[in-house]
């Protein structure tokens, strides 16, 4: 509760400062909005041309992509700037300053920068997701809506966990962003599409090694009634639990890394 109060003060201060440059603030948000609007347009173009992708219509694709984007944006508001990009704090020497303050390191990093640019992403995703859900409303039950909320929570925890995990690798490697680019951002691109169109080993990697498919693919199978195997059902239902476990694992790695950290140089 105490942390939420402090965080609220930081956010208020951040908005006051950003509002000094209103044009920059809103143009940043609009740029993010536009970027993902174009991505949705790309999906629309592909589904217009090919009808469906392995039985997934534009609305289904919107939910699939929307889940990964929405959870990423929510996690990004808190963790993208200074936790995922921890290497900047380490190599600039700023991290040492955080360590002498009476607050947990992750909490300080979260407070130090509010991810305002993600607000545009959240907005565009909500618009497309609500439109898609309205169109497929015949498939939605009360259970679907409750499950959707839980799946979003699970997805946010996995995305936040990934940001903490790849950020914390900087404690050992000093520079971990390039690794995050490939293992997080690039590999996550696969889950923008139904995994069934890719070779089976990709589904295995994205389920059991790096659980990016648990963010959106398995939950989408459940929401859209596309589950075909028991494995898919279990993974989908357990996605919030997997999210919690992955988040705890990432915190464990972060704390191990912090113990290992001894400064970035002279």
């Amino acid at each position, binding site marked *: 509760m105490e942390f939420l109060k402090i965080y609220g003060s930081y956010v208020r201060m951040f908005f006051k400062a950003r509002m000094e440059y209103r044009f920059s603030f809103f*143009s940043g948000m609009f740029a993010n909005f536009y970027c993902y609007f*174009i991505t949705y347009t*790309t999906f629309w173009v592909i589904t217009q041309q090919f009808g469906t992708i392995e039985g997934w219509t534009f609305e289904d694709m919107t939910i699939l992509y929307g889940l990964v984007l929405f959870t990423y944006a929510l996690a990004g508001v808190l963790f993208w700037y200074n936790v995922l990009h921890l290497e900047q704090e380490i190599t600039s020497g700023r991290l040492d300053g955080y360590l002498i303050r009476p607050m947990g390191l992750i909490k300080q990093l979260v407070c130090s920068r509010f991810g305002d640019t993600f607000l545009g992403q959240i907005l565009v995703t909500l618009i497309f997701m609500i439109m898609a859900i309205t169109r497929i409303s015949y498939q939605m039950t009360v259970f679907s809506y409750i499950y959707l909320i839980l799946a979003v929570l699970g997805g946010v925890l996995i995305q936040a966990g990934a940001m903490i995990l790849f950020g914390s690798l900087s404690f050992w490697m000093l*520079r971990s962003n390039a690794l995050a680019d490939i293992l997080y951002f690039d590999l996550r691109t696969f889950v923008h*599409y139904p995994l069934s169109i890719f*070779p089976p080993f990709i589904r295995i990697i994205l389920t059991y090694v790096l659980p990016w498919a648990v963010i959106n693919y398995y939950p989408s199978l459940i929401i859209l009634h596309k589950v075909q195997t028991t494995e898919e059902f279990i993974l989908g239902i357990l996605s919030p639990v997997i999210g919690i476990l992955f988040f705890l694992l990432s915190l464990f790695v972060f704390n191990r890394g912090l113990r290992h950290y001894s400064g970035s140089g002279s």
Partner: protein
Amino acid sequence: MHFFRITLKNSMVYRWPILLSIASSVLYIAISLMLWRFLYRETPDMVSYMTKYTIVSNIIGMFYARGIAGRIGGKVSSGAFVTDLIRPINIFSMSWQMELAGICSSFLLSGLPIILVYSPFLIMNSGYYNFPAVLLAIILGHVLFLLIYALLGFSAFILIEIWPFGRLLDDTIRLLAGGFIPLAILPSFLRTLAYAMPFRFLYSFPLELLFGTADMSNLFENFVLIMVWICVFAILNIVMYRFALKKAVVQGG
């Protein structure tokens, strides 16, 4: 040449990020290839076409350097732009040389490995035409791209933060230049929009020339059009640069 050499050396200092960026480029192409292979699984000719289209468009993309916007924009917002005025080289030429070095290192470190990894696919799906025209189209595309992003860099005088506009530009190019989705696939209203803008000359035009799908009767007309767009953006850059010089206030003695 000195700026060129320094930038080339700088770009090769951190080896791990370079290796990972190669892997990242290879993976990105692999994802696109898998998608097109699935979508066109019933038409092998289209699979072959989209395979070479995807690989070559990614290679062409390396010749287009968007960093010039950041270089110029960064100097404008930090004030370093003023100190560059006393140098015997203008900010545009200096930034262009740095970008050229970046392109060379990117091609050596990322482009060649990509060509090597995907060469079996490029050889298997052969059928390449009009090499001199393609080369000319890429060179002109490079100049056009550079001028568009340099204009964005100079606009930092007005916009202060240019990254949102850089992103708008990147995404518009992503959709309307034909780098990922061929323009022929776009719905008619988007295709009309793409043809009204200069971006199709960056990817779609050289790729169509290379794969022999371009309308050769319009070849001369298309090259004239690129030149016109280059002139338009060159003039806009000059106007913006002069405006910047008028607006800049140098503090100090």
